[in-house]
């Protein structure tokens, strides 16, 4: 879950003489049926939670929810979000502004370095901090680790938006008498609104869904409590109730984001080519700015990397037992590739409808996808466990079920990229190819698919990245004896075998690094939409 959720559903374009039909035409009905099936499938976790809440009965539910324990979890979660989200916003915007809008030396390098912490999964970050300060625990360290792990989720869309802002608007503000600071607050910040609300939503959802990082520092949130419940009573009512509360918070966050996104237009009005933005000189603030960025990068990226390497050196050659980590690497790769391919294929019908036949039908499909994409991994996993045991027992603990869960969890990433890619392949090109004598299917393959391929590959790469780092759902759903990099890392570090866990951490970081770079590059292109 990264910059995908911050993209609001987009309207299609029409030219004179060509109206948009509210429903896709007859020939596309197979695609719409597929899309509906996929949307229904993605509603399974939400349906599961609702069903469980209803099935438990009102009295039991109230009894389970209104407990001191839940109050404690609630307090922890709320305090965590109340502290982390503003901090992430602050760091993200500050970093983005310094990199994009000032004459900072080496801003190109800083631009990439500030996005780098995304290559380190949050639980590896936790592991490194616990290695540095073994007594770390509680709310303060939870806030510290979350902020350092998640501020790039705000930084990346903010930087992309800032780099695309029209300087003419700021110049108009200057001509109307606003100084630099006032221009920033009254003109620049409002244009960052979508990036900021989207980024804040992502940080919030990640906080609610994160398990490994908080478990390692023994900080209790809803997700860690659900996991503990699951491990003790498997499918108890208590765990399900906690899941309901968690889902409730996720939906609340979604609603808050939609509301605060506002309805004002943010796109540039008027024709002509946009000029390049001016960069402000920093003068006396230059050195403090460099130091600030250095400190941020060192803590967020340098520290985890340093400790992982230190553990590897401490462990020596022994930790690199090929018989253990090679199968894990292969399994991770296989699941990553299978998941990425499946997700891209599954996302295609919805993306196609959204771009080629915009209307209430595709919008409602997008909306349902938007809602279900906010579900935390643990809820999805629980839902799949229950549904598969009760309805399709043969599927439980199979690789297919795990891949299905991955598809559900990471569909938005593929969808956003596919939509952007399909938008580059308008219907007119397909028609031009048909007018030149190519049958419709051949025209589709040679023109539309060919033009969408790079974006689809980008989306698949992002899904691969997410699957390689996925812990919670993998722990719950993978067949017995499956080892991925994440699960091996987790079992080793749970046994306090930090040296043994280090190679897996390093491999995960190495695997994620190129994909993070890709995400950073992509966001620049998608910005402003």
């Amino acid at each position: 879950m990264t910059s995908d959720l911050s993209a609001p559903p987009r309207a299609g374009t029409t030219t004179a003489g060509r109206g948009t039909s509210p429903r896709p035409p007859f020939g596309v009905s197979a695609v719409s049926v597929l899309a509906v099936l996929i949307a229904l499938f993605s509603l399974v976790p939400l349906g599961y939670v609702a069903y469980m809440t209803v099935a438990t009965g009102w009295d039991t539910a109230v009894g389970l929810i209104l407990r001191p324990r839940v109050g404690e979890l609630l307090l922890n979660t709320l305090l965590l979000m109340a502290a982390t989200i503003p901090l992430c916003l602050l760091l993200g915007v500050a970093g983005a502004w310094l990199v994009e809008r000032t004459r900072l030396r080496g801003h190109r390098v800083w631009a990439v370095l500030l996005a780098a912490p995304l290559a380190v999964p949050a639980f590896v970050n936790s592991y490194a901090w616990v290695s540095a300060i073994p007594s770390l625990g509680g709310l303060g360290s939870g806030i510290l680790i979350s902020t350092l792990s998640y501020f790039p989720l705000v930084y990346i869309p903010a930087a992309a938006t800032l780099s695309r802002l029209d300087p003419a608007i700021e110049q108009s503000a200057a001509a109307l008498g606003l100084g630099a600071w006032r221009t920033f607050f009254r003109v620049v910040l409002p244009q960052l609104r979508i990036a900021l609300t989207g980024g804040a939503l992502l940080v919030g959802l990640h906080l609610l869904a994160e398990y490994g990082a908080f478990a390692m520092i023994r900080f209790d949130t809803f997700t860690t409590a659900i996991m503990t419940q699951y491990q003790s009573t498997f499918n108890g009512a208590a765990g399900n109730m906690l899941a309901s509360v968690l889902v409730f918070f996720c939906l609340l966050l979604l609603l808050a984001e939609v509301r605060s996104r506002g309805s004002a237009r943010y796109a540039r009005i008027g024709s002509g080519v946009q000029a390049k933005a001016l960069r402000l000189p920093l003068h006396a603030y230059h050195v403090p700015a460099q130091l600030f960025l250095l400190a941020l990068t060192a803590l967020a990226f340098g520290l985890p990397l340093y400790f992982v390497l230190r553990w590897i050196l401490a462990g020596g050659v022994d930790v690199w037992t090929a018989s253990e980590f090679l199968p894990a690497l292969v399994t991770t790769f296989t699941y990553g590739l299978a998941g990425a391919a499946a997700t891209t294929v599954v996302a295609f019908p919805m993306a196609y409808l959204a771009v080629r036949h915009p209307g209430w039908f595709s919008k409602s499909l997008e909306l349902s996808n938007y809602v279900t994409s906010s579900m935390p991994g643990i809820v999805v996993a629980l839902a799949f466990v229950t549904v598969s045991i009760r309805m399709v027992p043969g599927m439980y603990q199979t690789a297919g079920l795990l891949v299905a869960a991955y598809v559900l969890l990471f569909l938005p990433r593929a969808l956003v990229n596919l939509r952007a890619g399909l938008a580059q392949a308008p219907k007119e090109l397909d028609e031009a190819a048909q007018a030149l004598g190519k049958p419709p299917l051949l025209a589709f393959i040679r023109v539309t698919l060919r033009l969408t391929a790079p974006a689809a590959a980008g989306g698949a790469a992002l899904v691969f990245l997410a699957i390689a780092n996925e812990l919670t759902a993998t722990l719950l759903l993978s067949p017995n004896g499956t080892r991925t990099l994440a699960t091996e890392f987790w079992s080793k570090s749970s046994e306090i075998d930090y040296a043994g866990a280090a190679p897996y951490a390093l491999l995960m970081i190495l695997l994620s690094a190129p994909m993070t770079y890709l995400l950073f590059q992509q966001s620049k292109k998608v910005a402003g939409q």
Partner: protein
Amino acid sequence: MAPSVAATTNSHLQITDVTKNFGSQAVLRGVNLSVAKGGTTAIVGPSGSGKTTLLRLIAGFEHPDTGTISLNGTTVAGDGAWLPAHKRQIGYVAQDGALFPHLTVGQNVAFGLNAARLEGSRRAVNARVTELLEMVSLDASMAKRRPHQLSGGQQQRVALARALAREPELMLLDEPFSALDAGLRVATRRAVAKVLAEAGVTTILVTHDQAEALSFADQVAVMRGGKLAQIGNPFVVYTRPADRATAEFLGDAVILDAWLEGTLATCSLGAIPVRRPPAQGRVQLMLRPEQIRIAEDGPIRGVVVDTDYFGPETTVRLKLNVPKEVAEHADHRYPGGGEVITIRHWNASIARPGMELCLRVVGEAVAFPMDE
């Protein structure tokens, strides 16, 4: 060419009673058009009148709701028949060219070529591509460039070459010159018209620019509100428009109230002959500004209200004086003068606000019934 040519003789394309709705919006409400082989037809109308939809129906990208479209006598759409776009042998140039961005210019042009039919060799394909590019006055070295490296005008010409590659019999052009700068537009238009005329291709051009339609085509069809208001050759359509809206769309028009008796209409500009009177009594009379000339011995007088200098000519707005007959007889049948009309003149110094000018009307007027 008159639109009433019989279907089996010279007609290449025949559109009969075609309607098209998008959802609840009726875009085409019954269109009838016939295009002769080798002829050029311009469909002109304001934005949103349905011209692009009609073109897309002819190309085969949409199905008509009712009515038929036939090519060379064979029904391709309607009446249960349907020939898909890729089988229609029609060339289509979209509004912005629609060049494939992932292919080079040469690959774009060669896209429609069936390599097998050209005896397969790459050299034959390249030769054909060079030939087509030269046909549209583009240098053969452009073949290696990508579409985004070309200017708008060049892209349009590549799109034309691409459509011509398959030697279609019918060519559809959707506002192909609208994205070009004004200076380039005329030159490109002439070049394209020449290419198509030399190739003998039947052409249908869609545009909202009436000057383009009148200069490019030998048959002009004026579209309004989903129907063709008038079809005819440019001269006829311009000088004898079928109704007031068509008259005003195709150029500036001076519209005056008049009293029509027989074929003579009396108005503030005097008595003007009308060729085909639609009714008698009170009518609206239409004249083109160039028919009203400033002449020293002209029978009509007017006072200049203001002028607009455009360089080669000046637009002059005049308030017409009350004609002598009305001043004397005060007959309710004759309009009383006082209208403000717009005319054009080449000599700016002659017209200054407040001056009185003498006018003379040349040629015939067109009369429309009063209720329009």
